[in-house]
């Protein structure tokens, strides 16, 4: 499929999603606001915490807000646009994937596109915080890091989902892995050092979804800026490749037995 037709196709999918959101606008608003409140709750927690302790290994309240801005925002972006990023395993296991295979469109893209309303709450929250905390001079860097984080999240989701092509009943493992991923990303990254840090960057890339970005925003380091961008691009590309590789295996029938 050419680039232009892919773009047109995407537009159509989103038009449908937006129409649906408008149809259920009460739901849309309720879920957006609900998620917004949920996110703001954690600010209260951190406020109390830093009120007492001042800083954790260099991270203060300001850093947590930046973290929230990137993490929640990029998470919201991914979830709002590609809500099925977490359901790939489910589609494979229950056979829904076949539907997408029979259509003459880009499988992965088609599969991923769905709007989850709560994502907009996260997105609003993240962008709202960014508006208050990110200095104008760093807006561009923030934008790049923001997108990079979103790519990492998406890549991780696709990778986990694709492992279902190789391992039976992977859905539960995938779900736990996602929760763990988010949990690790959520807390101040400064608390990790040595092997843990390495693990959280290159094995479970939780660090690339906020932790490193915050450090870059506070004191810019070209080295880490490039690592962040390259890592996220690599991660996303690899996971997409991995998906199609697994898909070939699926189509050749090796995975049929699982769906019995």
């Amino acid at each position, binding site marked *: 499929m050419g680039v232009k037709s892919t773009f047109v196709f995407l537009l159509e999918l989103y038009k449908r999603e937006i129409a649906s959101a408008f149809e259920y606008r009460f739901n849309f608003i309720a879920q957006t606001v609900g998620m917004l409140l949920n996110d703001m709750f954690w600010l209260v927690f951190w406020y*109390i915490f830093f009120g007492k302790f001042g800083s954790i290994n260099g991270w203060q309240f300001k850093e947590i807000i930046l973290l929230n801005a990137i993490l929640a925002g990029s998470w919201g972006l991914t979830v709002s646009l590609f809500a099925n990023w977490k359901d790939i395993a489910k589609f494979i296991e229950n056979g829904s994937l076949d539907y997408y295979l029979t259509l003459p469109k880009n499988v992965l893209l088609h599969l991923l596109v769905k709007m989850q309303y709560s994502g907009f709450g996260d997105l609003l929250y993240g962008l709202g915080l960014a508006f208050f905390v990110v200095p104008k001079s760093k807006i561009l860097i923030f934008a790049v890091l923001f997108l990079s984080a979103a790519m990492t999240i998406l890549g991780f989701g696709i990778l986990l989902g694709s492992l279902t092509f190789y391992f039976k009943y992977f859905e539960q493992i995938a779900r736990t892995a996602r929760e763990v991923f988010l949990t690790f990303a959520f807390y101040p990254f400064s608390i990790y050092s040595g092997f843990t840090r390495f693990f959280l960057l290159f094995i479970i890339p939780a660090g690339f979804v906020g932790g490193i970005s915050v450090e870059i925003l506070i004191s810019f380091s070209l080295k880490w800026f490039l690592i962040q961008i390259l890592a996220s691009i690599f991660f996303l590309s690899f996971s997409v490749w991995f998906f199609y590789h697994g898909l070939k295996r699926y189509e050749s029938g090796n995975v049929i037995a699982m769906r019995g």
Partner: protein
Amino acid sequence: MVLSVSKYFTLAFVDFREKFYYFGAQLFHAFFICVIIFIFFNIWKAIYAQKAVIEGFTFAQMLWYVAVAEVIVFCSDLRWIETVSDEIKTGVIGITLLKPMSYVLSRFALFLGNFFYKFIVVGVVAFFLALILAGPIDASILSIVLSFFSIILGVMLNFVIVVSLGFLAFWLEETSAIFWIYQKSIFILGGMLLPLDIYPDWIKGWIINLPFAYMVYKPAKLMIQFNFNDFLITLAWQFGWLILFTVVLYFVYTVGIKRVQINGG
């Protein structure tokens, strides 16, 4: 007699055995709790680098507190608000009226059974992790047993509130919001994320008068720093709250079940 204990015990016990077939899921949950404990291990390690004792807690005690609090909250399934609300909606509650068995007592038996079922995996795993990361803390067998008793009282208190909220959720037709508010209240006001001692005095002053603290903070603290006086006071408060909310539940249930019987639910 509808109140005979053996029927509820059997009910809980058999449900326990039935749930055993979903044992695998518990391992995943245990893993997740471990991740949380590990993260807080790192947080507190950084904070304790400057001070050895914070608000009376040593590093080891703080980590054990986190482990115990997390386990308590996880094993006392707050999602039961949704379950109760659903059971009213789908008429399951009506069906239980057809048997000589109390709805509330049967649910209590199942809730408590569910707590133990989760506890034997998650609790044990969390215990060993805390042991590895922070080493043992000062606690005698007696103090552990007594603290555990307090934990169970907290679980019972949580139960009566949860069922009442389930009815409320049904009437208001709004389960998620109620669940969310209650869960966050337990996180912050119950002391799951941080022991209440950390909070500024003026906040701590009024939080300590709420029931949430007696579901998590007080029992968990007893487990970590047992003090017989504290134990008696905590027990008194727990019984007090338990009696109050049981009365509330009694009214909620009586009115609720009447409405189901008049309106068909």
